[in-house]
């Protein structure tokens, strides 16, 4: 099951977090898991791990629990804030980290060609467009990719939470 929720944070809190992310955080280059060569193809983007700011980590966890009606028991340390490389599609799954992903769109242009795509039977069959303050929850074994863009130097800030263990008042997804 995939869930899309807009207006994830209240307006003022969202603006404060977005401004903090854009102006205060130092990102490090991130390469695809399982790759050793630091090539452009393997370059995933820049990441700041949330383990480096526990207050921010806690805010994202609490809001995710509230909006998706779950209790997050264990979050993987790879969870972080990303500036994605959008020059090519990178279909992947995240089962080495987690059971469930939450992606929160923090800063970038609103567009269908700037969000996240999902694949079924290795064929692209869903485009979830980008909109600031939108969150998507999906199973980590669902093949997905950032949408590639032809726009040069397009920056897109997102938060990825890799949830290892969780519980819910509803049925498990």
């Amino acid at each position: 099951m995939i869930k899309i929720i807009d207006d994830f944070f209240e307006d003022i809190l969202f603006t404060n977090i977005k401004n903090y992310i854009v102006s205060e955080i130092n990102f490090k280059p991130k390469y695809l898991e399982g790759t050793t060569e630091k090539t452009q193809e393997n370059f995933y983007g820049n990441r700041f791990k949330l383990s480096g700011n526990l207050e921010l980590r806690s805010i994202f966890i609490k809001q995710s629990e509230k909006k998706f009606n779950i209790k997050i028991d264990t979050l993987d340390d790879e969870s972080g804030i990303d500036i994605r490389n959008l020059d090519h599609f990178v279909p992947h799954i995240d089962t080495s980290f987690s059971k469930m992903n939450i992606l929160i769109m923090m800063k970038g242009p609103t567009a269908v060609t700037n969000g996240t795509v999902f694949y079924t039977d290795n064929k692209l069959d869903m485009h979830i467009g980008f909109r600031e303050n939108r969150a998507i929850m999906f199973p980590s074994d669902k093949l997905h990719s950032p949408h590639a863009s032809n726009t040069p130097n397009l920056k897109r800030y997102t938060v990825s939470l890799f949830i290892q263990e969780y519980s819910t008042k509803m049925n498990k997804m």
Partner: protein
Amino acid sequence: MNGFNIVIKDNFLDKDIFKKIHQKINTYDYSAKGNQIEGINHIWFSCKAEDEIKKIIKDKCEKVLNKKFKVNFCSYTLLATVEPVVHCDLTELCDYQIILYIKGNTNLHKGTGFYLSGELNTHIGFNENRAIIWHANTYHSPLNWASDDKSRRYSIVCQLKEL
């Protein structure tokens, strides 16, 4: 709330029930009567679903959204639209809407598009036994217009009032 609140669930119905509906859905008499959106020509043909099917869909939606619903209507639908028809279905009788894809060609461009400020923002492809549930304030359109494949697609559409 002004934005999206959308759930996509594959393998929505149990296999046996899905198979039963899949086998019969193209045998019903479909009509455009009553399927009107103000200012827009009729865009789909429908046939009222049996009470048994209505209850199954309602129960599944209640489980997925963890809410209680009353069904406003529940219909089998047939669509071969060639023009985008962007609309929302929010009324005092409808808080949530579900489309359950039953029979048709799997295709990214034959599903449903969701719009922000009149612009297509998200599209979900057609895939048999895939359900999309959304808050009824969301603007959407069938996406057949974006596909070269103009074949028919059969679905179940329900409107739900939260209790």
